[in-house]
Structures are given as C-alpha cells and as structure tokens.
C-alpha cells in the first residue's frame, strides 16, 4: 500500500504539473487572440528611458556574480548532505554529531578562506 501511495503522489504531481502549465499558457493564448496588434518600429525598439540604445545589450557584468554562484554550489551541496543527517539525528546520537562537526568544520574552513580572500566582499 505504501508503494501505491508513492506512485499516486507523483501521478498527482504530474496532473498538477499539466494544470499549472495550462494556467501559465492559457492566459497568454487568450491575450494573443483578444489583444489588438498595432506594430510600430518605435514601439518595438529597445526600452532605454527614451534614449536610442547604444552598444551591445549584452553588457559585461561583474565576475563576482559568478564567484558567488560558485560558492553557492558548494554550500548548496553541503545543505543537501545536512538534510538526511538532520532527519536521522535523533536516532544517531553523539557520534553522528561529532562527524557532522568535522564535516561542517572543514567546509566552514572553506568559507573562512573565501571570507579572508575578500571573495564575499561586494565591490
């Protein structure tokens, strides 16, 4: 029985997925049918507060956004490892706590390194 409820949960999710895609797409379709269409080259130009757009819209942004994303990936993984540990924590006792201390300690070292190198400093 546990097995069936598992499959049904995800079958329901599939149904809701279709439902939510419908709710996202249907208004667009209706709006496309109902809305007027009056094209003009000025209306279709890039919006830049009334000025004529200059240069490449693909501006170079700070590399720091990328570094933050890198650090994010590492800590996202750490969080994912913490989830099963937290759920099993009550059943595991002190030894698991020490193990997790080591795990987080090593990663906190990485965080401190990043901190010290000024990576977390927004410039």
């Amino acid at each position, binding site marked *: 029985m546990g097995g069936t409820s598992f499959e049904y949960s995800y079958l329901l999710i599939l149904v809701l997925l279709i439902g939510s895609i419908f709710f996202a797409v249907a208004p667009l379709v209706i709006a496309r049918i109902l809305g007027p269409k009056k094209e003009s080259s000025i*209306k279709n130009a890039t919006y830049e507060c009334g000025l004529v757009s200059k240069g490449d819209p693909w501006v170079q942004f700070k590399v720091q956004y990328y570094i933050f994303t890198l650090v994010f990936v590492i800590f996202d993984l750490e969080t994912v490892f913490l989830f099963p540990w937290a759920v099993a924590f009550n*059943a595991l006792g002190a030894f698991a706590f020490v193990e997790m201390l080591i795990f987080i300690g090593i990663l906190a070292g990485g965080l401190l390194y990043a901190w010290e190198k000024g990576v977390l400093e927004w410039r």
Partner: protein
Amino acid sequence: MMTEPMIAGLWTDTVSFFGVHAVAVVLLKIAVVLFALLGLVSYTVLAERRISAFIQDRLGPNRVGWFGLLQPVADSFKFLLKENVMPAHVNRIYYVLAPCIALAPALLTFIVIPFGNTLAGEPMVIANLNVGVLWMFSIASLGVYGIVLGGWASNSKYPFLGGIRSSAQMISYEISMGLSLIPVFMHVGSLNLTEIVNAQSHRWLFLHPNLFLAFLIFMISSFAETNRLPFDLPESEQELVGGYHTEYGSMKFALFFLAEYANMITASALMVTLFFGGWQVPFALPESLSHPVTWLAPFVFQPVGFVYILSFFLKMLLFLGVFIWIRWTLPRFRYDQLMNLGWKVFLPMALANVFVMGIWMALSV
C-alpha cells in the same frame, strides 16, 4: 522482458484507487487548490494596493465593485485585452517561455502543503510526499530560470542586469533558507510536512528558542527569495527601470507579477506549516476535539475540518499581511549590504544554530 504482472499490477492499483469515487475527489482537490491559489493571488494584489494606500494615507482602488472588490476581475480583463507587444529585438521563444517558467513552479510548490487536517476522511493535502520540504526547495529553485531567461531573452541592458542581480540574490539566500530549516528537521525527524504539522499538536515550533531564530532567518530569507522589499533590488526602479521585466507588457508581464505573489503565498504557507502549527488551532488540541470541552465546542460538529482549513488560511493571511506591511514600511537595501547580510550574517548564524540545536537536543535527552 517487462513483465505483464508489473503493468497489470499498476493497472489494478490504478483501478482500485481511481475506481472508487476518488478520482473525482482528487481532481476536485487539485482544481479547488489551483483556483483558490490564483484567486488568492489576485486578491493579495488588491490587498497590497489597498493596504499600501492606507499606509500612505491614500484611498487605493475602491471604485470597481464594493470597496473595490471586483478590481482583480477588471484587472485581469484589462491584461487580456491589452496589446500583446513583442519587441523586435527579443529572442522570441525564451521571451514567451520565461513568464511561463516563472509562474508554473510557483503554482506547483503548493501541492505538498497540508492546508487542513481531514475533510470527510480525505486528507487536506494534495500530495503527501516524504520529501515534502525538499520538493518545495527543488521546485522553488526552478523559479530563478524564469527571471534569468526573461532578462536574457529581452536582449536589453536593464533586464539583463536585473536578471543577473536577481538570480545572484536568490541563490545567496537559498543557502541560508535551507540551512535555517535544518534544526526543524532535527527536532521533528522528518521532511514530511504532514508529520511536521502533527509534531506541533502540543507546542508550535517557533516557541523553541533555536527554532525561533531559524524562523527569523527563514522569514527574512524568504523576503529576499521572493524579491520583495527590502530586497527588491532586481526591479529597483531608480536604477534598472523595471529590472528583468522592463521589456514585458500585457499578459506576459502579468504572469511575472502573479508569480511573485504566488511565491509570497507559498512562503507564507510554508512559514505557517513549519513554525506556526500549520492547520492546528491554538489552545484546542486535536485529541480534545473528540470530547468537545474547549472553546471550540460550538463548532465541533461534523465539518470540524473546515475549522482547520480556516485556521490555516487565517494564519497565512497574517503572514501575507506582514509581507505587505514590511514592503511599505522599510527602505531598500544596497546591493553590497544585501550580499553581506546573506553570506556574512545569515549563513554563519544558520550554521551556528545547527550546532546549538544539536547540543540542546543532546543535553535535553
């Protein structure tokens, strides 16, 4: 190779499950939740406009219908009838896809939230997943794509920068959001939201000091996650015009807008579920409902399930009110302050909270 019995087994399971009245019930539940969510979204928009007007000593939209209550209907027709502008410079496929990607996950996350106990024996949750919270996180992380793609596909400077900013902000706060919940799972020992609600039948989790800190981190992070003030840098008008949706109009803009409010509703619902007892009614423990001696006694006839749904709904409205109240009260952060807060304050704080919770639990056993 594959096995008639397997398919046949699934088939009989399907029949035994769907054969009863259940298919109607399940589809009804899904439809009601989806429509209620969308209705709630549009009325949250109205509430935001009215409350902001109240805070700024204005009137707000009060002409369409009684106290402006039909304003959302008028708005949705307006959005449908507006011209469907498709600027010449955009990447057409992703430009249209982005608002859909923003909205669909926002609707999908609600599926695992128990919004009531039971009603006529039917549990008031659509899918009771064992990894409920992880499901919410995983689906919520898809929302970033709508924003990044919207910004990129617009092929214009302001949306591009807005999209990059927004995604960097969202991922930064996703970490502290996830870490802040670790103590909750240590306490409850499950990722299943129904079990988390049941664990709060005697004491709501926010009453625990560690979990109260977890709640604060989670709440503030969810403000950043939903791009609400004081963290609305992606769409800060003074710098980036409209941020990632600068080039959007009509219904496509409306979908981004709805997604933001749907995310807000989900965040409120999650806070209620994780820290404020979910559908539980204060001072009325579930077991006492079987022998009605509490103040709930007049309501304890059959549809006590409605009381629970109402309780969940009211708590959620409270948090939505907080979202709106804060938006119109606090000024915006600077971007470096925002990043510092996420990485240098909340991340270490959430990690420390995990430690303290572990020690607390070890001592209290």
